[in-house]
């Protein structure tokens, strides 16, 4: 079941847990895929960055399972937590990947993804009629805000690379 925006319709607290679980699970899958791409294209620094991001999202995913208690979030997510339009909010943009990308680029992708997740849960807080849903969504907003802050802190350690970051003197597929 999806709402007008194509996002899943959250009608109960169980739905909210299922959606939150799916958002984190999708983020894990996406970072793992990006790490695999970097492994194939021999960018070991980025393999580490994306694997770390995947691990961080997996911790959040498992934490949501724990908070959900007896609710089978995995099964529920499979039935109702699907995005009919666009992608799950915390999935890093696959089309922005590049084989020479740097940690700064990876963190930029993560920042946008975290901000999208924050905006999604904020919209639930603003529209939920059920006080229980609103309360839980407020907690998720706080969590996502922490993640946004964390990415900002990490970006301090990884400044923007020079404009020449994508120049490859020995490109894998040169035009002749």
């Amino acid at each position: 079941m999806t709402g007008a925006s194509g996002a899943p319709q959250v009608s109960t607290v169980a739905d909210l847990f299922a959606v939150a679980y799916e958002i984190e699970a999708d983020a894990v899958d996406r970072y793992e895929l990006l790490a695999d791409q970097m492994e194939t294209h021999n960018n070991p620094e980025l393999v580490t960055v994306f694997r770390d991001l995947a691990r961080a999202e997996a911790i959040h995913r498992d934490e949501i399972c724990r908070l959900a208690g007896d609710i089978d979030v995995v099964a529920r997510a499979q039935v109702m937590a699907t995005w009919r339009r666009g992608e799950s909010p915390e999935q890093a943009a696959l089309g922005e990947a590049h084989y020479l990308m740097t940690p700064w680029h990876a963190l930029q992708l993560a920042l946008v993804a975290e901000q999208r997740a924050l905006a999604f849960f904020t919209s639930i807080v603003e529209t939920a009629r059920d006080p229980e849903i609103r309360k839980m969504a407020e907690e998720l907003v706080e969590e996502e805000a922490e993640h946004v802050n964390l990415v900002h802190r990490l970006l301090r350690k990884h400044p923007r690379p020079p404009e020449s970051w994508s120049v490859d003197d020995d490109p894998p597929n040169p035009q002749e």
Partner: protein
Amino acid sequence: MSTVDMRLACKPADYKSDIKPIWCPGCGDYHVLMSFTRAFAELGLPSENIVVVSGIGCSSRIPAYTNCYGFHGVHGRSLALAAGLRVTRPELTVVVASGDGDGYSIGGNHFLHACRRNIDMTYVVMDNHIYGMTKGQPSPTTEPEFDTALSPGGTGLRSFHPLVIALASGANFIARCFSGEPNETAAVLVEAIRHPGFSFVEILSPCVTFRPDEKEWKNFVHPAPVAATNDPAKAARRIMTDDGFNIGILYRGDRKPYQPAIGQAGTDLSELEKDFEL
């Protein structure tokens, strides 16, 4: 099994193989693979009843990345093989994957006649307007002004218009998708596979290595302004006058699919031998 039960039983990950794709990071084909697996899961099809057939090119690597039956065949000949497979094994779901070079140039003639025959299968062309695997030569859908070391001053050739050609040749379902919208694309693939006859789905899938300008496609695409029609004349007018970025199902025909009667294959070798007697 109800729709909900089927969705519980089938997950997109169930249709992925253990082989990791080697496409360039940023390539649109990653999203197309996701759309395939999401569509198969949505349809609840057993993977052993699906066959993904391809030719040659970046896009044609896709059968290896699914755990369905697959055939990574000869350049441009995927439709011929798929047609033979589908008429002899009509119980299978046959999906053919191709690119604009493989599908419209080397396999161009097969494309016309596959549309004409209207065999019940789905043809997906990942169109990036370039030969990516062979280092960036212009393809049939490359714009005439595409100016590179391999096409100095541009090709000066009019671009091939696959959707109009498919319509004129008799395809029974025509859609255009954008790889960057994998859920929307999966929904169209579900419809294409369900629709009887030859379904043609063109997916605009950027080549970030040789066509970095195509990263802008995400800003150009937009939903088709009207619902699909079953009137070929209307569909032709709409497709001919759009900007090439209308996304969605554009034509749903009602032609009966071609399915010849299948004779029982003989198991007696002496009978077979008689067929070869001069």
